[in-house]
């Protein structure tokens, strides 16, 4: 029994060492914390970034262990259910404009709160901003049901529309018609978003 337990801890500790240099910061740190806490009664908050003593002493230019952006403890995903919103993604180039969750163009899904509070301004957390942005295929199940009964506010912007909407060309402009609601798709960055518009004439 005790053998089993220490093997479990060993796995955790080795996880820390394997994962940390790869940049899996949180996993590495928390696993190390767990492992170390079980093994030795030490103050563990300063768990070093480079995890473990398996690395050679730093040479010139190498950062000496420690010092990483702390972020542990922010986890514990509660009962958010299936798919929590995306708050950020990996940058795809080195010299880029990084702007996580601070977007001015905050955009809600159509299915949020009867759609009357669609918010084109900034509010506390822009976390939902990226939810549909990063996935071309995903449509919230609730969307289709809600749109039918909700009068979308003209001028509001959504990231996704129900798959049942149809594309209609009026005077050379593409619209998506979803029942009585008309959307005009546009690119914002490389994301497609939909602006609620009056029925075109």
């Amino acid at each position: 029994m005790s053998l089993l337990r220490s093997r479990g801890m060993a796995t955790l500790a080795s996880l820390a060492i394997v994962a940390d240099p790869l940049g899996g910061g949180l996993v590495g740190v928390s696993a190390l914390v767990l492992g170390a806490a079980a093994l030795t009664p030490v103050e563990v908050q300063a768990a070093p970034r480079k995890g473990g003593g398996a690395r050679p002493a730093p040479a010139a230019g190498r950062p000496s262990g420690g010092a990483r952006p702390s972020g542990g403890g922010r986890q514990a995903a509660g009962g958010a259910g299936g798919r929590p919103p995306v708050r950020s993604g990996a940058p795809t180039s080195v010299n880029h404009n990084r702007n996580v969750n601070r977007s001015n163009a905050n955009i809600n899904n159509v299915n949020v709160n009867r759609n009357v509070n669609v918010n084109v301004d900034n509010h506390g957390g822009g976390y939902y901003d990226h939810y549909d942005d990063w996935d071309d295929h995903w449509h919230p199940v609730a969307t289709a049901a809600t749109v039918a009964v909700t009068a979308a506010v003209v001028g509001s912007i959504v990231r996704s529309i129900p798959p049942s909407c149809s594309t209609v060309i009026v005077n050379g402009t593409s619209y998506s018609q979803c029942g009585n609601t008309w959307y005009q798709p546009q690119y914002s960055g490389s994301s497609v978003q939909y602006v609620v518009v009056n029925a075109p004439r």
Partner: protein
Amino acid sequence: MTSRITGICVVVLAAMANAPAAAQPSTASTEASTDEAVVEPEALAAMDRTSAALQALPGFTLKSDVTTEKVLETGQKLQFGGTVDIALHRPDAFKIVASSDIQQREFYFASGTFTVYAPTRKYYASAKAPATIGLALDKLKTEFGIELPLADLFTWGTDQTGRARIRSGYVVGPEKIGSRTCDHIAFRQELVDWQIWIEQGARALPCKIVITATDDPSMPQYSAVLNWDTATVPRPADIAFVAPADAHRITMVDQSGQAAKGDKQ
């Protein structure tokens, strides 16, 4: 099995030996910016070599296997794989096809016109852009909030400010990327840590690039293994956008009035 357990035990010992030491330096728990910022000349020299090699190419085609990560509000990371294929003709044309299970985008630039196309949604948008790639990239970023995947490959060697942003850099050592032997170099700068593997020998092209965001505690990471074809230079006409019959043109929002909005491709 026995050897594996032995290995694990060694790891445990290492961790135990390290734990007390790790606890001592309380200063180590501060922000990464307190790292001693040393930029090894060898690291910059390697970047200069690969930048020169890239700039010397009149064009190329490149197929890359990428992984990218999305951070959920909970801090959990999800990883997705995909490909980014690039065709470049200096100085005035490129085509980028970024494809993954979660998103497909195509980016075209030729004859001073830029086009973004979402093949699954059948929407494209075009905009006039300066005639050369570097200037066009600037406009896309500042005016339309579009950042292209692996755009560094276009600009390294021309963007002199890139070097100034680096606050830490060192050569890790030679490593194998597939059949290639490549020098692994690690850099840190504001917002990102990044790593590049540069092929040894005369070619000196990047074998692999890894970019880690440091402004989110979950540190989402992008990784791309690059497979080059420098033998054939694409012709602009061959990589220009041709709207599919069932595609619809839509508009592109001018974001230059807003705070720059990073592209989350």
